[in-house]
């Protein structure tokens, strides 16, 4: 086998690893955000929270770099010409999700919303649903590259969790607006919930895009 062929084989393996690493980082960012939100509800804004926000930012930065490297590699090596557009769209959509995670983390650290402790359980449930939805999306994305026929299960879960998160967010909003707090505080707290809901919506949008990509990939 020629040196060039060995290089190409090596290049493909390295790109596969890069894609896996990229997806790992997104799944990790989701877990970090869950940890961060849990910590915020229990301890408020402290040094540990700032450390967690810093880690989310670092993940976001690394993800953006990986996304750019993958994009350049796919174009310069003229790889997967038929599916390149779909793959790049997926990578960018996942990068946008990372952006939302970063914004949510920074938002929490800067605005430090005060929620009634009685809402903590439901708030944490929403965060868990959102992060689980992203986790299933990452699993489905991984399957898209190897066994696209098996990803429907995870895509279905993303849709289900988004719906559940929606319902819970509405319930929480009602609870927030039923208090005697000033209206600006109520709106402010609801904004935080809306941002979480947006993240779940985005995950669902990416899942829908992925299921179309799977139809296109079908042999």
């Amino acid at each position, binding site marked *: 086998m020629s040196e060039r062929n060995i290089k*190409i084989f090596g290049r493909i393996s390295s790109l596969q690893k890069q894609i896996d690493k990229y997806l790992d980082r997104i799944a990790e960012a989701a877990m970090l955000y869950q940890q961060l939100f849990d910590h915020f509800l229990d301890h408020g804004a402290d040094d540990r929270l700032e450390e967690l926000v810093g880690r989310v930012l670092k993940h976001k930065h690394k993800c953006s770099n990986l996304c750019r490297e993958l994009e350049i590699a796919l174009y310069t090596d003229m790889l997967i*010409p038929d599916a390149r557009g779909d793959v790049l769209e997926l990578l960018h959509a996942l990068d946008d999700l990372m952006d939302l995670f970063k914004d949510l983390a920074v938002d929490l650290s800067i605005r430090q919303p005060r929620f009634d402790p009685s809402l903590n359980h439901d708030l944490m449930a929403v965060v868990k649903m959102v992060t689980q939805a992203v986790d299933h999306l990452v699993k489905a994305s991984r399957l898209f*590259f190897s066994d696209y026929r098996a990803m429907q299960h995870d895509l279905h879960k993303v849709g289900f969790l988004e719906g559940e998160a929606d319902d819970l967010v509405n319930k929480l909003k009602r609870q927030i607006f039923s208090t005697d707090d000033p209206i600006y505080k109520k709106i402010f707290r609801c904004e935080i919930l809306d941002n979480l809901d947006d993240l779940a919506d985005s995950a669902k949008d990416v899942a829908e895009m992925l299921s179309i990509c799977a139809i296109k990939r079908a*042999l």
Partner: protein
Amino acid sequence: MDPTIFIFLSSGLFLGWSLGANDAANVFGTAVGSRMVRFGTAALICSVCLALGAVFGGAGATHGLGKLGQISTLAGAFTVALSAAATVMWMTRAGLPVSTSQAIVGAIVGWNMFAQLNTDKAVLSKIAMTWIACPVLGAVFAMMLYQIIKGIIYLFKPHLLRQDQLTRYGLVLAGALGSYSLGANNIGNVMGVFVPSSPFTDLPMYGDWILTSTQQLFLLGAIAIGVGVFTYSKKVMMTVGDNLMPLSPVAALVVVVAHSMVLFVFSSTWLQETMVSMGLFKIPLIPVSSSQAVIGAVIGIGMLKGIKGVRQIRWMVLLNIAGGWMMTPIAAAILCYVFLFVMQNVFNQVVM
């Protein structure tokens, strides 16, 4: 050697050029069109393998074509090849899909008519039957191959990038085999009519190896085909890819392999002898249309996908193609008759 010989051979070379420009697209069109293989790589592999196929495997199919009509004069061969080439060029310019094999068969029938010789009905019907068998066989091979490759992909679940890489290698390998088969099968179209009046003499090469006069003729034809590949096939390759139906790279690979298999079936003396020794039927060794094989294979894949695939096939394009298949031999026969009349009565050439 009389240099005027090359003037007579020029029509064959012209036909070779148009075969290279058009039929190379059947082998590498889907690969280049989908940007899986660079044009330069495709053209080089295609030209080299085509020349090898023409020189070392071209005799079988040419012999089959010779049974239809033995054109014994150079002027006659020139006119027959010119009529076929003109038909190919005229129909290509008119945007009609064309088969070089059908054009040359039509032209030979035109020569037979002009020379008031009876065309062997058995041979003609055998050739005409391959025009039906070729796309049908292409479809059957494509359906079988597609199912096998699909099964392998589902079983091993390769990463998208790895699948892409293996498909790329497969396309290059299948393209090389396809080019060899195209050279072996279709060189008869280009130079077959010149074989009985070949101006070359056997050339001793290395040791016992002799480059026969026919092989030299075929090599010349293969060079003309190669020039056609390099100079004009890119445009055709870029459009042939999804002309009839959008194809995935895996489907493109299946189409090229199925096409190569069809051409191999109709040009391999080894396969013919093996079939006969096994007591099975004798496969006719005749130049067949690579376009028909490709179209059959594409339709085969479309049908395999059920209603979704059938709806993806552009049926109007297919009707157009079928119309072209019917028109080509008739047009070539008429044109050849007219050209022979002109050659004999205006240029005073002995054409029969």
